[in-house]
């Protein structure tokens, strides 16, 4: 039984990280009806920025104070937010009225650019690196034979706090109202006096910040970073994208539900069946859900977005 709960815990934590990333896909899709393929690269950038800042601050690998950890976290989240903003401004905004396929191809281009540019020796380099332990990931306690790490608790609390903040923002604030209006009808939203371009930029900023947080937490949990263009980043982003689709792309609740569902399924499948089939099973879940509910768990109607 403790084996089961152990898997459940790990899956839940993993699911929270997927959910954070899935939110970015879902926010952008809700507003622009396009899939931001460069999103998984922002996750990668988040983790690598943290690595770079830790290096520059001369952080040693053993002892780091909370202040420095938070500083590094904050800086790389901010940097990713800036990157998200820049991508939207330079790559997507000029194509606002172009056919959707153009934006899609551009997104793939942006993704390739980020993966390869960041491999330059003066950026992040093309090798895997050890991630500084911003927190002690091994400390923890046992509950009935299940090892619970403080880091897992922090990850879950942090992720849920971010998701709660996001849904407050979307459902309770002026900006959120504007986002939902744009997702329903951009033209009419602009007639309300909403500066649509700016609100769209904010959406990218938000999504990128969440992705960065997920990237850093993942890097710290693993203790090492795959090189920027590694397929493990792409696979990570792809799974988060599947979470968004399973939950119903465009829906915030859906992204969270999908993230947890996929995260837990993946772990249970890996533990009980075979870790080499875990990915296949995740894709199986995707196919099953889409057969039963083509628009995802929470995707009730197509117009119900963001």
């Amino acid at each position, binding site marked *: 039984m403790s084996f089961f709960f152990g898997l459940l815990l790990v899956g839940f934590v993993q699911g929270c990280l997927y959910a954070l990333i899935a939110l970015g896909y879902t926010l952008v899709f809700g507003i622009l009806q396009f899939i931001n393929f460069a999103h998984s690269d922002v996750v990668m950038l988040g983790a690598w920025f943290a690595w770079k800042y830790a290096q*520059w601050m001369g952080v040693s690998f053993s002892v780091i104070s909370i*202040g420095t950890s938070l*500083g590094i976290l904050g800086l790389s989240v901010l940097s990713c937010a800036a990157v998200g903003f820049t991508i939207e401004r330079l790559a997507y905004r000029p194509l606002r009225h172009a056919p959707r396929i153009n934006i899609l191809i551009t997104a793939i281009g942006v993704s390739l650019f980020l993966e390869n540019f960041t491999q330059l020796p003066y950026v992040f380099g093309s090798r895997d690196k050890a991630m500084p332990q911003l927190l002690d990931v091994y400390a923890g306690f046992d509950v009935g034979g299940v090892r619970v790490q403080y880091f897992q608790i922090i990850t879950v609390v942090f992720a849920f706090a971010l998701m709660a903040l996001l849904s407050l923002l979307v459902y309770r604030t002026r900006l959120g109202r504007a986002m939902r209006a744009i*997702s329903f009808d951009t033209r009419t939203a602009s*007639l309300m006096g909403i500066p649509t371009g700016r609100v769209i930029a904010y959406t990218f900023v938000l999504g990128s910040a969440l992705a960065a947080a997920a990237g850093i937490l993942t890097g710290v949990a693993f203790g090492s970073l795959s090189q920027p263009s590694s397929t493990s980043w792409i696979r990570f982003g792809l799974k988060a994208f599947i979470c968004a689709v399973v939950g119903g792309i465009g829906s915030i609740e859906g992204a969270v539900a999908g993230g947890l569902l996929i995260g837990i399924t993946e772990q249970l499948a890996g533990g009980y069946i075979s870790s080499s089939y875990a990915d296949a099973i995740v894709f199986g879940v995707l196919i099953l859900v889409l057969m039963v509910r083509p628009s995802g768990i929470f995707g009730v109607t197509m117009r119900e*977005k963001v």
Partner: protein
Amino acid sequence: MKAARISAGVGALLCVLGFLLWWGPDHVGYKIALLGLQTAWHASAGLAWAGVGALLMVFGALPCLAGVAIIRGLHDGRLGRAASWGAGLIAWFGLFALFEPREELGYGIGLLLTLLGAALAGPTSIYVWVRSRAARDRAVASAKAASGTLLVVESLDVHYGAVHALKGISLEVQQGEIVTLLGGNGAGKTTTLRALSGLVTPSGGRVLLEGREIATRTGALPPDQIVRLGVSHAPEGRGIFANLTVRENLDLGAYQRRDRAAIARDLEHALTLFPRLRERLRQRAGTLSGGEQQMLAIARAMLARPRLLLLDEPSLCLAPTITQVIFQIIRDINKEGTTILLVEQNAHQALKVAHKGYVLETGEIVMHDDAKVLAASDEVRKAYLGVG
């Protein structure tokens, strides 16, 4: 104004930054400063991309802000200019503090920055506050004083690709009037309104709002800025956000406004005009009937507190009794001082409430006159009133 606001912001930022440098927990300030130094080192390594990277760094934002403040300051009043120059200089100064690797000096400069930032942010915030109040009072006064021609459209052309939808139409709307634009399907009525609210850019001619150009061949102001100038457009097909509640739709109408008390008053007023909406405030707008949606569209447009209200076929697909209610309310809104440009196919009703009318046919104005004259003219009676 903007410059003062920015310099207040920069001042506040400096305050925080200086405080971090000087007293930061865990020497964060100092570490951030080191980061700045490293960034600069990379930038000066002669690699162009590192320069771009450095700009992207958080501290790259400081000189940028200062630059913006200085440029803005050149266009602004004397005090704003002085404040932004000051902020700019301090920002540069702050940058040097970041390059300074010796701890003591870094902390000393940090303290200095805190004091300077506070000295700058305090007075400028007060200045901004006073100025913005004065500006609001002035705006209210000038809106009261303004009279005469509100909107002028001069030989406006609009193309949709190869389709020539408007062929050089001209019209004028005086302050306080209801002007109606009549015409059959595809005449170009909706296109006219779209050009007025910035949704399409004209291919010729221009649109003037109180003498100010809002759309010309070379470009139109974006819709949100036109809303800010006091033009509110209730679009064809109502444009209700079905996924939001009625209340949220109404709130969006007041998106540009910050005067909460006045918004609450206007909301109350709108709900008195449309009591049906009050009962349905928390309901999804998509569940409203057609008539209620039209009421919501008008109420929402009113909440922007427009000087010019553009209504696109408010009576479309409505039962006759509801149509009566809507036209009565259009008249009431006008009596309260809002100028209205009313697009209609229901010429009979529109000419009853309007002061003046224009008739549009395939993108050209074929007739314009007082509403009474139009209602009596043979052509209009034949073509639009089903008499003849």
